[in-house]
């Protein structure tokens, strides 16, 4: 075995220029696969981040059926127990509570049907980016009124346009009080106007401090939604069932973003599929390159193989030699590929693609897309190249093992 490995390694360097060029081609292919993986990870994380960090969070808990109707009576059960569990959960980074209900917003110019969110003005900042999305005015100032600017409301820029209001103007929010079933109306001043670049949020939502919302809707201390963010961005997609099992109790339903935004999940799956197809094509190109190189090298050495067989080398040993040569070539190419791949992924991680503001699959990129290093890029992809190379080398190896010795001995260059 060791002898054949040594022979194989020396054989691939018999034609250094050809081996280098083949190694470079395979290496470029591997580097492009690694880079594609890294940019797709970056893009997916960016898309998930755009969706989850703007408002949704990585996961949410509601009372079962609340999201279908936004029925204000469907508040979360065992709220304190849930909060305590989430606070002790090691995967959870932060949580916030919200109320949400349909209502209307009216200005002297117009009236619109919207979703009125009551938010914990301090905790909300750790989950969503409403504060960062303020373009005019300011977010609820935590320093004032114990963190809640009573009488202030945040509205989207498109809604402000429709209502023809600006910061400081008065608007009226109306919603049904669940305790009395009467219509509750409160006057607010526009404290801030935000642009989240999510159409739904910019046209049909308004945010007020949660205590005011609870009072207006007659909820007492009850809430409709608990939004959660995890320490690891992958946790929501990888541990969805675990999270649901832990917190879907007493009529509550816990869901992570793939369930909350299924269209995004489908889009990401489609992206994975397209990338998979691209990778298969690149793999195929690489593999045909390898077969070509192996056959070229084989045809050049037919006399030599004839001699090896004549002096007593078994066909299986000759096959082993060819497979070892392919493996050596794959190893050499993988080193080139990993070095090239690391370099371009590193460059991509510093100088990202600026697609800020571009909408894709319902999500708007809010940050530069950078490549993201993942261990599989350095282990799985080179390993796949190695295994595929060894696998395809079985074909020329079989050919060499079956060739007629006398025919091979007639071939001299």
């Amino acid at each position: 075995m060791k002898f054949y490995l040594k022979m194989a390694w020396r054989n691939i360097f018999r034609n250094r220029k050809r081996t280098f060029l083949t190694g470079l081609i395979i290496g470029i292919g591997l580097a492009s696969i690694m880079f594609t993986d890294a940019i797709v990870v970056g893009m997916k994380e960016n898309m998930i981040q755009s969706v989850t960090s703007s408002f949704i969070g990585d996961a949410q808990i509601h009372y079962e059926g609340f999201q279908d109707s936004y029925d204000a009576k469907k508040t979360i059960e065992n709220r304190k127990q849930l909060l305590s569990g989430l606070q002790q959960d090691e995967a959870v980074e932060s949580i916030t509570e919200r109320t949400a209900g349909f209502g209307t917003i009216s200005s002297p110019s117009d009236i619109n049907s919207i979703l009125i969110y009551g938010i914990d003005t301090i905790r909300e900042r750790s989950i969503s980016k409403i504060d960062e999305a303020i373009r005019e005015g300011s977010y609820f100032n935590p320093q004032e009124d114990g963190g809640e600017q009573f009488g202030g409301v945040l509205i989207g820029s498109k809604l402000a346009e429709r209502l023809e209001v600006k910061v400081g103007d008065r608007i009226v929010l109306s919603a049904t009080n669940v305790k009395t079933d009467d219509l509750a109306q409160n006057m607010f001043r526009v404290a801030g106007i935000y642009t989240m670049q999510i159409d739904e949020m910019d046209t049909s939502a308004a945010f007020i401090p949660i205590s005011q919302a609870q009072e207006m809707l007659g909820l007492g201390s009850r809430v409709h939604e608990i939004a959660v963010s995890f320490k690891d961005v992958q946790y929501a997609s990888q541990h969805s069932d675990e999270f649901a099992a832990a917190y879907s109790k007493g009529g509550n339903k816990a869901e992570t973003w793939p369930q909350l935004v299924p269209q995004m999940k489908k889009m990401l799956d489609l992206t994975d599929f397209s990338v998979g197809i691209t990778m298969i094509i690149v793999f195929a190109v690489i593999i045909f390159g390898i077969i070509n190189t192996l056959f070229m090298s084989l045809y050049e050495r037919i006399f030599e193989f004839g001699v090896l067989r004549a002096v007593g080398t078994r066909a299986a040993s000759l096959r082993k030699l060819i497979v070892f040569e392919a493996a050596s070539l794959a190893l050499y190419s993988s080193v080139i590929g990993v070095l090239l791949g690391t370099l371009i992924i590193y460059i991509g991680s510093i100088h990202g693609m600026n697609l800020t503001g571009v909408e894709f699959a319902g999500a708007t990129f809010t940050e530069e897309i950078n490549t993201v290093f993942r261990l599989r890029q350095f282990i799985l992809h080179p390993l796949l190249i190695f295994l595929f190379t060894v696998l395809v080398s079985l074909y020329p190896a079989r050919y060499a093992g079956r060739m007629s010795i006398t025919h091979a001995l007639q071939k001299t260059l």
Partner: protein
Amino acid sequence: MNTVENVIVAENVKKDYRSDSIVVHAVRGIDLTIQKGEFTAIVGPSGSGKTTFLNLISGLDTPNGGTVLLNNKKISSMSGNELSDFRRDNIGFIFQAYNLIPVLNVEENVEYIMMLQGKSKEERHARVGEILAKMGMQGYQERFPSRLSGGQQQRVAIARAMASEPALILADEPTANLDSGTSTALLDMMRDLNKDTGMTFVFSTHDQHVVDKARRVVILEDGKNVRDEVKE
């Protein structure tokens, strides 16, 4: 009483090649017995069937008719692996020039067959040293074939063929690519080895130098042995 040991017994050996509808009768029924320790040249013009006959008696090719016994074993009935192992243990091959493995140095080329036989490194090393000394190639162990002359390469090829002490050494036109001085020196060396070790040498040639050195000359024409001369 001395018993004569036959190394090769070929009886009515035939070989035809077919190309489309044309049948070429390369060997048309050769009968030949070669005894242990012989130094035999198979001679004949191009196309007379020399190489084909060597291929048949060495098990590199299968006859269409007749039988070949090598060391009293019928080689035509052996399986692929059996044949490989049989060749490895019983036949040493010397081809025309350029038949060393270019990525192996002199020592590795010579020890290759012994390595296939599973001999220990120490045993191989000792045998390589011994045989290279006999061939006047000591000090060349680390050299690769590309850094050897044609004559040196053939000496290493002889060393490789002899390393495992086979019963028979077959050489197909061993001097074809060598100048006459080198050819003569090489043949003298092979003849001395034949005398010293008692190994059987059979070679095909149309080189008069080789024919002159042979103790027995078998002449082939059109795939048949037409004359068999034993020199004193």
